[in-house]
C-alpha cells in the first residue's frame, strides 16, 4: 500500500511539474471544442445536435496527446528496468500509471466539459449525463492507451503509431459515451447506453494492465 501510494504521488508530481504535460490535454480539449462553432457556423440548433459527439471526440483526442510518454520517459532514463526489479508487479505499476494519467488528463476534461457544453448550446437536461458519461468513460481511454504506450515504448516518435493502434479500441467507448448524452438530450432512457459504457470501462480496467505489462516485458527481454 505504501509502495502504491509512493508510485502514485510520484507520477502526479512528475505530471504536474514542468514538462509533465498535464495541462496539455485540457488546453487541446478547450481549443478544439471552441473551434467547432467557427467551422460549423452560428446555428444553435445544429450545434446542440452535434454537441455530444463533438465533446466526446475532442475528449478522446485530448487523452491521446500525453499517452506516448506514459512509459517512454521511464524507458529512456532506465527507470523501467529498476521498476521491473522492484517488488511491485508490472501489472500493478501499469494500473497506477494509467490511474495517474486519468487523474491528470481525464479528470480535468470531465470538469471542463460543462463549460464547453454551453459554447455548443448543449440542452441543459443533458449536462449531468455529459459529466457522468465522461467520468465513467474516460478511465477506459487512459487504460486502453496504456496498451498502446507499452507496445510503442521502444520506438522513437511512436506517438503516431500509438494513435493508430489505440483509436480503433476507443470506438465502443465513443459510441456508448456519445449515445448516453444524446439519449439525455432526446429525453429517452439513457441507461442502456450508459450501462454498456460502464461495462466497457470495467472490462478495460480488468484486462488492460495484464496486456500492457505483457507488452512491457516483451520489450525488456
Amino acid at each position, binding site marked *: 500500500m505504501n509502495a502504491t501510494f*509512493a*508510485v502514485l504521488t510520484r507520477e502526479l508530481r*512528475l505530471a504536474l511539474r514542468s514538462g*509533465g504535460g498535464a495541462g496539455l490535454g485540457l488546453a487541446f480539449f478547450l481549443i478544439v471544442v471552441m473551434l467547432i462553432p467557427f467551422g460549423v457556423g452560428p446555428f444553435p440548433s445544429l450545434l446542440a445536435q452535434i454537441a455530444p459527439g463533438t465533446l466526446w471526440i475532442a475528449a478522446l483526442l485530448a487523452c491521446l496527446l500525453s499517452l506516448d510518454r506514459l512509459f517512454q520517459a521511464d524507458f*529512456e532514463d*532506465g527507470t523501467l*528496468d*529498476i521498476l*521491473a*526489479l522492484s517488488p511491485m508487479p508490472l501489472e500493478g505499476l501499469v494500473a497506477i500509471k494509467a490511474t495517474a494519467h486519468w487523474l491528470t488528463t481525464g479528470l480535468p476534461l470531465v470538469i471542463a466539459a460543462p463549460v464547453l457544453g454551453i459554447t455548443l448550446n448543449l440542452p441543459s437536461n443533458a449536462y449531468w449525463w455529459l459529466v457522468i458519461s465522461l467520468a465513467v468513460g474516460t478511465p477506459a481511454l487512459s487504460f486502453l492507451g496504456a496498451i498502446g504506450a507499452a507496445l510503442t515504448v521502444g520506438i522513437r516518435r511512436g506517438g503516431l503509431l500509438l494513435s493508430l493502434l489505440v483509436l480503433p479500441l476507443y470506438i465502443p467507448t465513443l459510441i456508448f459515451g456519445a449515445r448516453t448524452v444524446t439519449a439525455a438530450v432526446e429525453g429517452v432512457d439513457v441507461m442502456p447506453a450508459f450501462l454498456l459504457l460502464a461495462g466497457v470501462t470495467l472490462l478495460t480496467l480488468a484486462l488492460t494492465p495484464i496486456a500492457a505489462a505483457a507488452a512491457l516485458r516483451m520489450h525488456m527481454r
Partner: protein
Amino acid sequence: MTLNVSNLTCYRAGRLIFSDQNFTIDPGETVMLRGPNGSGKSTLLRALAGMQPFEGDVILNGVTLADDLDGVQEQIAYAGHLDAIKPQLTVGENLTFWAQLFEGGSISDAIEQFALEEIWDRPAHACSAGQKRRLGLARLVVSGRVLWLLDEPTVSLDTETTARFAQIIKTHCAGGGMAMIATHIDLGLDTPREIVLDPSAMRKSTPSRDPFLSGDWE
C-alpha cells in the same frame, strides 16, 4: 545465498555474444567482470537480472531464473549505464521514492554513505553527472537486495567517491552480500575474482541463429 551460473549463452539480434559461461558467486564474494568493449559484459549482467533472453541455467539461492523470474528479481539490485533519475524531482524525492518502493535497506545509511545530505533539496536536473551517479548508486543501499549487479558503476565518480564506493561494496559483501561488477578500472578491492569475456573466441564460432539473418546476409 549462492549464485550458480552454468552454460550461460546469450544472443543479441541473432548474433552470439558469449557462450557457455560457468561460474559461481558465494556469499560475501565480489566478482569483477572484465573484457573489451562489446564483449558482452552488460548483456551478461542484464541476463542475470532477467532482462535479456539467454540459454543455460541461472540459479540464485535455490531459485531458478527460468522458472521463477520474480523470485530471482526480488533478490537483485541492478545499476546500469542509466541512473534512472527523474530530473524534475529533487535528490531527496528521488531517493525517498525508491526507498518506499523497495522497503528494504536504510535510507539514512544511503544518505550518509553517498554524502547526499548536502544536495538533498537540489532538483536532480541541477546536479552534476557525478552527483547523479551517486544518487543512482544510493538506490543499491536502500533496495536492501543481496546480489548487486553493477555495470560500470564508477563512471563520472571522482577518486574520493570511487574509494568510498569500494568501501560500500566491501561492507555489503562483509554482511553476506554478493556483487558482480563490470568495470575497466581497479576499484581497490582486496583480490576479487575475475571473469574475463573474450570476444575473439566468439568471432570464429557459430554463425547467426536468427532464421532471417542466417545464410548469406553478411
